[in-house]
């Protein structure tokens, strides 16, 4: 039973356009969410996070939106750059100390 779902295994976006990566969750105990980026042969690196008390967090080109009623979050990257090509993982933390990752979405930025 996947508590954190990233339903798109891969996504291709033109350079300069907006990339939108989606993540859905089922556990209402989750109260903190993070996005990680992973290049081949490297460990995931932290990108951006959001607490459940907020609905938006922005850091440069990266914005995370949280819709608690829909149990949905999304990561927006604008404008997309070639170096953004990577696998993006959504992760959720719950009040009872559970940490659950999604399977990841592979983002390809096309020239």
């Amino acid at each position, binding site marked *: 039973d*996947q508590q*954190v779902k990233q339903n798109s*295994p891969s996504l291709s976006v033109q350079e300069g356009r907006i990339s939108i990566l989606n993540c859905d969750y089922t556990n209402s105990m989750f109260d*903190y969410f*993070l996005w*990680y980026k992973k290049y081949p*042969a*490297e*460990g*995931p*690196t*932290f990108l951006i*996070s959001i*607490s459940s008390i907020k609905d938006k967090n922005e850091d440069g080109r990266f914005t995370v939106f949280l819709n608690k009623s829909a149990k949905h979050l999304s990561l927006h990257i604008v404008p997309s750059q070639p170096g953004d090509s990577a696998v993006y*993982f959504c992760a959720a*933390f719950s009040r009872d*100390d559970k*940490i*659950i*990752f*999604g*399977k*990841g979405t592979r983002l390809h930025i096309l020239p």
Partner: protein
Amino acid sequence: DAMVIQNPRYQVTQFGKPVTLSCSQTLNHNVMYWYQQKSSQAPKLLFHYYDKDFNNEADTPDNFQSRRPNTSFCFLDIRSPGLGDAAMYLCATSRDRGDYSYEQYFGPGTRLTVT
């Protein structure tokens, strides 16, 4: 540079032969985590240490053990590896948990092959 180091990067072991994976950190973080990630799957948390307090996930097999002799080092022991244990093993650290500092710093991982 402060970092999380995992050795070795690639480990081959035989079916049933005990193996130990190591992780060290120069970040002086309180919390250390071990994850297992199989191909095209989500990283799955096996254990974490909050300082010396060991927390085992309920569905982590007994075949997996962990040791944290000091703040900097953490080891993952697989007592009798099976073919199903072949995976990438990721070590991560975080500064703390109580203040919502959930940002985790990951090592590059150790890819374990079981023959």
